[in-house]
């Protein structure tokens, strides 16, 4: 039978009807949908046994103690470590650390800058040869400078020892809270490092110090906050915060006193005045002078200078006086540049409250002894003022070094007057960065050397500033480096040898062992924390209140600008060393960054005064720099103040940070604090105009 066209169509019709009654179509559709989930670039789970490595975060400035969870030996997540003295929670930087191992801006091999400005990969042998040659030209007479971004590590001893062997004392820490505190404590005659026993306090007043976000070992602070305020029960501790912006600390505190930026010292002296009137005293030799100084800060005077009305000031003074174990913590609301005076005034308040050397008060913690003979110890390192020194280099009062070594520091992005500081650093002929990320500073260097990330190396955290006790925490690697990186400590030891210097330690691991021993720690047994706590404290005797220093420091006429500037620091956008981890981009708020635009915050009254509305594009300018931004209205900002989120506006790193927003540090002009000489940059102002 010949099949004609009609017959064929019938056949097809029958076949189609039949095929629909079989699994062919449905199964194929199902299989295709599964197949689309099978493409090779889709990440797959890898099954295996769980293991946990207790360590401490070197990336997060809080030095949080964590546990790294590994599956089949591969790190998958950073978890809390409730047993760790600096743990009990997780910071948003530590949480992102596993993902950052695979960051697109991670340094994968040593790089050198070629004549045309491009970076090319070189071998470690070539890199070390180049480093040795560069450093040879910087021998003698402070021709080598070291800038380190690690405030707590023994690694600093190796770098400073190398500098010392080269005849240089130009070693600096990146600015932070520790430096002004060390200065204040030293001026008062205190020994060791000042410590704050938040855990045992029943009333914590933070003046400026952003204790729940950027000040000190933040996660430990948060744990103390949480422990004192159990859910559904009566809190055993009250928190009060004074600062210009309702930041995360203000939001968590029971009391928020909005004060003008840079008015911390005045507020502290106003409280001191009220406490002294209520009978508070101090055995300090200069108490009479202090009392006379404080008496000038009447509630009316304080209200005029800080914006806090007399009733609210009196209420806080009364709460402080009534508390059994009050503690005052003073610092900078954005973690740097606040000067020594606020800390000094805050410590003086503690002295008036009887909080010195008391449970739930101020402790003097001993520094660990040096383990590298030629090194600069932490106390000496804290005395060197990086911003002040760079200012002198810029003005020609100090000679520019021949070579500069940056260790996990990003001064090209993170210093005040960023543009001027960058130009000053550019004067140095040979610049080397030890870093994990290709950051702004690395992009300005002749040689960039990758260091393993914190999860890939042995390292340590020794008693971060703010801790209430001596804590020595060891960082242990959870995995071998994923890139061609070498531990900076071992590289420095090797380089020193090639330069003919013996640093006295054969390997970085030996330095860590010696430091642990110096702190009385032993890590021979498996530990759930790899951390050691010591109850060692130094006596606190003969503390002076230094009214002489305070009277000079407060006698500052801030430059007259129509609007004060209050930077707002938050950990989720990373640090200058990390930029914003891709893991955290979802935590950047809607009206903080939109596309490339930065949103700055002001309250409705300030906006109305300036004739601005939400989303208006404005230019913020002052002699230090200028940039454009958009307006967001937020009633948690004091009058006549613009709050600018910090940590944005990177010009390096990856697509998640580069070119997003503006860097507030560009608007902060550094000056010298009268009485202490320390660089300060917490009282900036700006002009605002519609752009």
């Amino acid at each position, binding site marked *: 039978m010949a099949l004609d066209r009609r017959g064929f169509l019938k*056949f097809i019709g029958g076949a189609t009807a039949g095929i629909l009654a079989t699994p062919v179509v449905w199964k194929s559709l199902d299989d295709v949908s599964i197949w689309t989930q099978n493409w090779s670039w889709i990440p797959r789970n890898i099954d295996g046994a*769980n293991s946990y490595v207790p360590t401490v975060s070197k990336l997060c400035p809080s030095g949080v103690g964590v546990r790294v969870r590994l599956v089949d030996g591969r790190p998958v997540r950073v978890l809390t470590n409730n047993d760790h003295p600096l743990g009990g929670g997780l910071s948003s930087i530590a949480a992102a650390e596993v993902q950052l191992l695979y960051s697109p801006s991670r340094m994968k091999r040593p790089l050198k800058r070629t004549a045309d400005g491009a970076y090319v990969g070189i071998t470690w042998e070539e890199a070390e040869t180049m480093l040795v040659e560069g450093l040879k030209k910087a021998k003698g007479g402070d021709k080598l400078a070291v800038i380190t971004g690690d405030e707590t590590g023994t690694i600093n001893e190796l770098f400073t020892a190398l500098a010392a062997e080269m005849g240089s004392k130009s070693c600096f820490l990146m600015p932070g809270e520790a430096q002004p505190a060390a200065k204040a404590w030293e001026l008062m005659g205190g020994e060791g490092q000042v410590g704050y026993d938040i855990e045992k306090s029943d009333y914590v007043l933070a003046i400026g110090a952003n204790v729940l976000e950027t000040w000190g070992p933040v996660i430990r602070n948060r744990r103390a906050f949480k422990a004192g305020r159990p859910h559904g029960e009566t809190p055993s501790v009250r928190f009060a915060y004074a600062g210009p912006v309702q930041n995360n600390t203000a939001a968590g505190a029971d009391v928020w006193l909005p004060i003008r930026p840079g008015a911390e010292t005045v507020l502290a002296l106003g409280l001191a005045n009220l406490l002294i009137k209520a009978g508070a005293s101090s055995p300090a030799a200069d108490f009479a002078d202090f009392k006379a100084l404080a008496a000038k800060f009447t509630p009316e005077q304080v209200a005029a200078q800080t914006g806090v009305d007399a009733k609210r000031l009196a209420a806080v003074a009364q709460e402080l006086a009534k508390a059994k174990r009050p503690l005052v913590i003073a610092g900078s609301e954005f973690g740097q540049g606040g000067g020594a005076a606020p800390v000094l005034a805050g410590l003086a308040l503690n002295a008036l409250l009887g909080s010195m050397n008391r449970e739930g008060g101020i402790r003097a913690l001993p520094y660990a002894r040096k383990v590298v003979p030629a090194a600069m110890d932490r106390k000496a390192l804290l005395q060197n003022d990086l911003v002040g020194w760079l200012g002198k280099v810029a003005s020609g009062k100090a000679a520019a070094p021949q070579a500069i070594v940056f260790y996990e520091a990003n001064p090209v992005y993170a210093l005040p007057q960023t543009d001027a500081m960058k130009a000053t650093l550019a004067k140095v002929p040979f610049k080397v960065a030890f870093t994990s990320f290709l950051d702004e500073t690395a992009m300005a260097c002749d040689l960039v050397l990758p260091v393993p990330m914190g999860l890939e190396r042995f390292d340590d955290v020794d008693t971060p500033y703010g801790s209430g006790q001596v804590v020595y925490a060891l960082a242990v690697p959870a995995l071998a480096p994923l890139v061609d990186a070498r531990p900076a400590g071992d590289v420095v030891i090797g380089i020193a040898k090639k330069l003919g210097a013996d640093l006295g330690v054969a390997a970085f691991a030996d330095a860590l062992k010696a430091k642990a021993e110096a702190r009385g720690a032993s890590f021979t047994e498996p530990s759930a924390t790899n951390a050691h706590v010591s109850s060692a404290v130094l006596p606190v005797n003969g503390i002076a209140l230094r009214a002489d220093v305070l009277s000079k420091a407060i006698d500052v006429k801030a430059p007259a600008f129509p609007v004060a500037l209050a930077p707002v620091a938050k950990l989720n956008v990373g640090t200058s060393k990390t930029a914003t981890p891709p893991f955290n981009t979802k935590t950047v708020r809607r009206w903080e960054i939109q596309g490339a635009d930065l949103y700055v915050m002001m309250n409705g009254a300030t906006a109305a005064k300036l004739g601005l509305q939400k989303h208006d594009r404005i230019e913020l300018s002052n002699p230090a720099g200028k940039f454009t931004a958009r307006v967001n209205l937020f009633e948690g900002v004091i009058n006549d103040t613009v709050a600018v989120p910090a940590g944005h506006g990177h010009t390096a790193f990856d697509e998640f940070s580069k070119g997003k927003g503006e860097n507030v540090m560009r608007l902060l002009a550094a000056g010298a604090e009268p009485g202490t000489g320390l660089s300060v940059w917490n009282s900036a102002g700006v002009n605002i105009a519609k752009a």
Partner: protein
Amino acid sequence: MEDRQLNSSGCGTDGGKCCGGGITPFLVGLVVSLIFGWWVFPDMIYSKKEQPIRFSHKVHMEGAGMECKQCHVLREDGTFAGLPSTASCADCHSDVMGSDPEEARFVNEYVKTGKEVKWLVYQIQPDNVFFSHAAHSLDGCNQCHEFKESELCAQCHPDVANSDSAPTHFENKLTGYSKQTMKMWQCERCHANENHYGVTSSSNACFVCHK
């Protein structure tokens, strides 16, 4: 064109013979596609693979008196280790114990070389399915059922307790998954069974399995 129209318009006047063979082509097409769809196609989309070693569960369960969980262990943290490693098999098979040539081959090729056997797994789920063996325990199910361990396992897995050789592994040529991979409706035999609600912690909410 006109002729064609004339021809076609004649349909029905010629006893149906002009209509392309009546219903027959339709039926032929139907039958051919049914045969293809139900008998040829299912066989065509899978490639057949055998396990690298012929493994007898029967010998281990009946002969050695072992239980499933002795080899297919839950780790201390509740995660499922799945298949035993060569090292754990070597706890007993450090040397050839019996007369089965497959055992000798296993010992020589794997135990002595330390190589892992690339066992074919019948029921790997995709990553968008979160399945915990720890949650599907005898304690939970035997609140009402009276399963033996091997019976509980066989609710989802091929019942291999009584077999002398592992079943053939049918691998889907397109997806790579085994033919025995459980589909969601099979999970729902228990998860959507309302008699289970309130008795076990099972729920049919999406987020229970799809994270």
